[in-house]
């Protein structure tokens, strides 16, 4: 995070990202209490549905309006086989800028990396990184060790398959896990590649407070990676033992979202 502010983005100006139909699921409380809206950004393979399952509804119950986005090429959003991480970040910023107030960006998995890129282009009220996958070789090695058959094809441009044991803890009923796994899509090849070799995110604009949370039993993001991600933003990760990578779908989904909302209510500059 020692990098400097970037003023000139000639390539981005010269070759703007093309618009694609974006799926945004929203849940808005009946009474607007002036709380910042939450924008949920799913990781690779997931779509807005992953948040619509539990977290959106719960946020509304607690008086926060929630929006869940499907990145281009995923779930209900328009097809984009050539999408890059930059295009994903563009989608996040577009949706965030379209919200009535400065938004809190909540990114899960590789979506947290997308959020980190978006933070350099949008002064979010706050950011929450849930089980962040910041990429690099370590991510690939961990995934290879845990799930060699599912990961190997992805390294040569094929499809990344995640297993049940990677995503969920043992407490999630088997058929529910199967239902979620069947909904997983595939991310764009270039974005997948950039996850491993892409550029570091630039420093966030507007100095937003950042919360990092995850599970020590996460089989995709090792605890050391969580600590590293949190250190980028000068904080320590909040841990939820016993859960898998998909904190928003796993059996104990209520605790992490409550922790996020509690944090937002307490954080002076985020609330």
């Amino acid at each position, binding site marked *: 995070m020692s990098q*400097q*502010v*970037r*003023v*000139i*983005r*000639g*390539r*981005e*100006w*010269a*070759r*703007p*990202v*093309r*618009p694609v139909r974006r799926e945004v699921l929203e849940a808005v409380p009946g009474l607007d209490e002036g709380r910042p809206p939450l924008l949920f950004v799913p990781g690779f393979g997931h779509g807005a549905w992953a948040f619509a399952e539990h977290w959106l509804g719960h946020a509304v119950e607690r008086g926060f309006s929630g929006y869940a986005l499907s990145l281009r090429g995923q779930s209900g959003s328009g097809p984009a086989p050539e999408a890059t991480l930059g295009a994903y970040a*563009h989608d996040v*910023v*577009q949706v965030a*800028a*379209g*919200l*009535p*107030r*400065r938004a809190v960006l909540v990114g899960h998995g590789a979506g947290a990396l997308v959020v980190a890129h978006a933070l350099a*282009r*949008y*002064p979010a009220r706050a950011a929450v990184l849930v089980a962040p996958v910041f990429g690099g070789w370590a991510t690939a090695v961990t995934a290879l060790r845990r799930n060699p058959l599912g990961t190997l094809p992805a390294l040569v441009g094929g499809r990344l398959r995640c297993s049940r044991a990677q995503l969920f803890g043992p407490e999630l009923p088997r058929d529910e896990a199967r239902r979620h796994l069947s909904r997983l899509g595939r991310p764009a090849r270039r974005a997948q590649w950039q996850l491993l070799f892409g550029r570091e995110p630039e420093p966030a*604009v*507007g*100095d937003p407070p950042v919360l990092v949370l995850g599970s020590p039993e996460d089989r995709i993001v090792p605890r050391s990676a969580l600590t590293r991600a949190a250190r980028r933003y000068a904080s320590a990760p909040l841990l939820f033992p016993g859960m898998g990578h998909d904190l928003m779908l796993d059996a104990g989904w209520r605790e992490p979202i409550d922790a996020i909302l509690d944090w937002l209510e307490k954080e002076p500059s985020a609330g």
Partner: protein
Amino acid sequence: MTTSTDHGWPDPASSALDLNRDGRSVSDRGETVCVIGAGPSGLTAIKNLTEHGFGVDCYERETGVGGVWNWRHDRSPVYASTHLISSRPLTQFPDFPMPDDWPDYPHHSQLLSYLERYADHFDLRRHVWFGTEVVRVEPADGDRWDVTTRSTGGYGPERTSRYAAVVVANGHNWSPKLPNHEGLAEFRGEVMHASSYQDPAQLRGRRVLVVGAGNTGCDIAAEAAQQAAHCWHSTRRGYWYAPKYLLGRPADQLNDLLLALRLPRRLRQWLFHRLLRVSVGDLTRFGLPQPDHRMLETHPIVNSQLVYYLGHGRVTPVPDAVRFHPDSVELADGRKVDPELVVFATGYLPRFEFLDPKILGDDGGAGRPALWLNAFVPNHPTLAVAGLVQPDSGIFPLSHWQSVLFARLLRLRETRPSKAAAFAATVTARAGERYAGPVKESSRHWFEVGHADYLRALQRALHDLEAK
């Protein structure tokens, strides 16, 4: 929205009352920064100053945000068909993009809705005193400023508040620059400045002379070509008319692609000349003068339609108007034309009538301040001008970074005064610096900048400021 009628002025009991040099009472606003104007540059100044933790009072003479882009404002120069001349990615605020499904060159009404959304998204309106104009800005002790305001139109009493800093963002496209032609007063036809041109109906069926080949002049000439009985377009010299699209993309994006590929200016100029030559051809065959400069040397004129209507014979190019007779206009080549309506698209001049010209380093009163980065004032470290640039892109990104730099500078004045002092020395040493290639001189071209050159200089200043 705050209006002039429900002004919650700073309570005198809570803010210390002081007297200024003339003995008038001044309410001290502490560390608050004053922003003059709630147009695009003013809005981004409010946003970036509040983001850096400053309190902001913004004074806006109109009742809404958007400045010149708000067609409801009496000083707004937009006409019904105004579209951007720089494309979306080069116009939007860097941290608040326009919707990506908008056209490449949005309409002015879209731009207003964009600015209103910007104000709402970042909750800026609560800082703005609408319907309030600034009468005077005077330096006070300790690099502070006394800002005197009153209700727009001069009603009500004047009030003076003392601020830690001032950002002047009063715009430069509202004070018409009118030519001073011989015999203009005796001319019997109608004469108007482009600022009062709103709708093509004003041209319908009439013989129209459009004076000026800026972007507005060319737009009006192209509209006159469709509506008027006849249109003469008077230009002082030859220009390059850049089309809005070149090689399948917005022309400014093509320029930035070449910039990103680090093509030197000369090569880009050569390329653009070639491209125009092969696509549009030689404009002198329509009777236009040969351009006396190279492309990218003056503010670009972006108009795809003018050449098209020249080709249809709907626009007759004529040289400069020299003299007006009661029923005709004499041109530089001795010809006479007999328009019923003359539209002067002769541009605007920046004006800072609330500031002593000496403060901005404009000693001769020529309306030409000496600033660094077109924003920072020598010997007045807590004063900045935002948006006083005429770039070959949109102004918003430049204003954005100007106000970011100013906000960080104000912070450093508290945390690391030595850095701020070094910055002030740079401002004094480099005031008047230019950020474009060789530029044709005129009363307006002095604040023309190349957006890449300018932003690079600004980025360097920002990095120097942040350096350990």
